[in-house]
């Protein structure tokens, strides 16, 4: 039982990063970014290139790779989403699907379909209080917790965070208060790219990376973000944790390959019953 809780926590944390990325871009830009999966993949492969191809230590590769992924996300915004800025959410959504195709297949074109792994030493799992704990799981927990903490501080406490929330709340008013939308949007994309790359790397640490990997995490990320309530970005974190634990728990009664489906069913149920999200207090629009 504790093992399930722990595994669920780790899965939830891994999903929390892209879920937060989705929720952040949604709150500032008002559209669901379907390229999040490809951004996870691209980030994981950027780190792979630095780590395995160039032979840098994993920590350095992770930091540099995440930064590159942030820059990549900003570049995508400049090339694709900026020309589409004031168009409908559906247009942006379809465009993000196009971005997803391009990114994923550039990876496939260069790296091929074969799964690859990072250059890390294999280690034995620890046993503690009856739990089986992998070193990778601990790393994932620590990195995720740190990343989430940083995003939380930025979002709730910093000038950039206030600007992001102001634009999410009332973009024209924010403009007349001196908040420059383009800068905030760029910053949001950078954060989103970094979060995606971190999760991609951590997923790769636990298993392998391949061009499909991000896609498998994209929908759980959406489900988690919706569970939290898309309009409250930080609520995506508990959303992801709840989902992680519940889908691990579901393996008690269901075959384990249906884990993802639990997330979908949960999400659909929630959308029908509580469209504002599990934790979302009502978003004030009046």
């Amino acid at each position: 039982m504790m093992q399930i809780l722990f595994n669920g926590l780790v899965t939830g944390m891994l999903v929390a990063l892209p879920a937060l990325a989705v929720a952040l871009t949604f709150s500032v830009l008002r559209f669901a970014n379907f390229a999040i999966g490809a951004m996870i993949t691209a980030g994981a492969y950027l780190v792979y290139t630095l780590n395995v191809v160039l032979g840098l230590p994993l920590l350095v590769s992770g930091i540099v790779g995440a930064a590159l992924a942030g820059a990549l996300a900003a570049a995508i915004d400049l090339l694709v989403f900026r020309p589409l800025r004031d168009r409908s959410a559906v247009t942006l959504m379809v465009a993000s699907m196009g971005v997803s195709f391009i990114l994923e297949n550039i990876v496939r074109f260069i790296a091929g379909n074969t799964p690859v792994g990072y250059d890390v030493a294999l280690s034995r799992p620890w046993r503690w209080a009856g739990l089986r704990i992998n070193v990778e799981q601990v790393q994932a927990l620590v990195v995720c917790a740190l990343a989430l903490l940083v995003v939380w501080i930025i979002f709730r406490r910093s000038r950039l965070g206030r600007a992001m929330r102001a634009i999410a709340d009332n973009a024209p008013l924010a403009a007349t208060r001196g908040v420059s939308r383009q800068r905030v949007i760029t910053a949001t994309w950078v954060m989103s790219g970094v979060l995606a790359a971190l999760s991609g790397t951590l997923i790769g640490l636990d298993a392998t990376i391949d061009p499909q990997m991000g896609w498998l995490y994209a929908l759980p990320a959406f489900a988690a973000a919706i569970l939290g309530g898309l309009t409250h970005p930080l609520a995506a974190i508990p959303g992801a944790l709840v989902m992680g634990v519940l889908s691990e728990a579901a393996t008690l009664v269901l075959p384990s390959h249906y884990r993802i489906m639990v997330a979908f069913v949960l999400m659909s149920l929630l959308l029908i019953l509580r469209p504002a999200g599990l934790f979302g207090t009502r978003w004030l629009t009046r």
Partner: protein
Amino acid sequence: MTSYLLSLLTIAVIAGVVGLALNIQWGMTGLVNFGLFGFYMVGAYACALLITQLGWAPWQAVLASIVITTVVCALVSLISLRLEDDYFAIVTLAFAESVKLIVNNEEWLTRGSIGIPGIPRPFPSDIGMLLFAMAGLALVFLAFETVSRSPLGRTARALRDDPLVAETVGKNVLGARLRLFALGGTALGIAGCLHAFYYQYIDPTQFNVAMTASAFMLVILAGRGSHRGVLLSSLTVVVLIEGTRFLDDAIPWFAPHQLAALRLILIGLALILLLIYKPEGFGREYRYLHGRGRATGRAAAPAARCRWD
């Protein structure tokens, strides 16, 4: 060479049916069906399984698959019709991924990743297959043209352009949406059957989100709501994209997986460029042909505006 041409045309015709389905769901009604490939997969699998497992005659299987896909579409839309665009897209996509997951894992029923081989065609020859597919396309096209001109079609466009106004003038919003989404499902069922017959072998890897993306590309290129446009765009796009498959042998410096990746990059690129530079597409929606359109909504951008202003 003729067989190349025949298969190219058949693929284009099937893509045309899929395009028409999305055109009525998204183009006309505004329902963002990102899970298109899931419904298509339901149609293909229903058809293949009824024939190979239960020994039904092809025409029985086709009819049954169409009914099944339509009902599934109606059920999925029942739970998600009240949702906003983003959520609708996510829920339909989640549905499609779930279908794929089930097909992959319920091996007793679907044979999982091994796939279903030996699906017999109703008309064994290539030309027979093409004619059969064209008959399906013609049927869907005529039916949809009729629907477009019916009160239901007008309601749909009014809903897409301004749900609030349509609701206040007393249109049955959910009912109209449900019927049109299910109608799209009927077309997807037909397309699924054609797919199963054409390839004679299906497995889960044939169905993925690339299908959804290319369908969106077809509809945007066609001009949202224009059924004729979809016929034209599916023919040109499929010939252009699938045509490159036949060039694969002539390009020795890329591996097959790289060529496959390039094709998908091309789809993504075309989608984005279209959205940026030609969002209104090349065709005209029925009402614009008759010059009584209203320039609302994003997709009705410049082409519509210059007619109205």
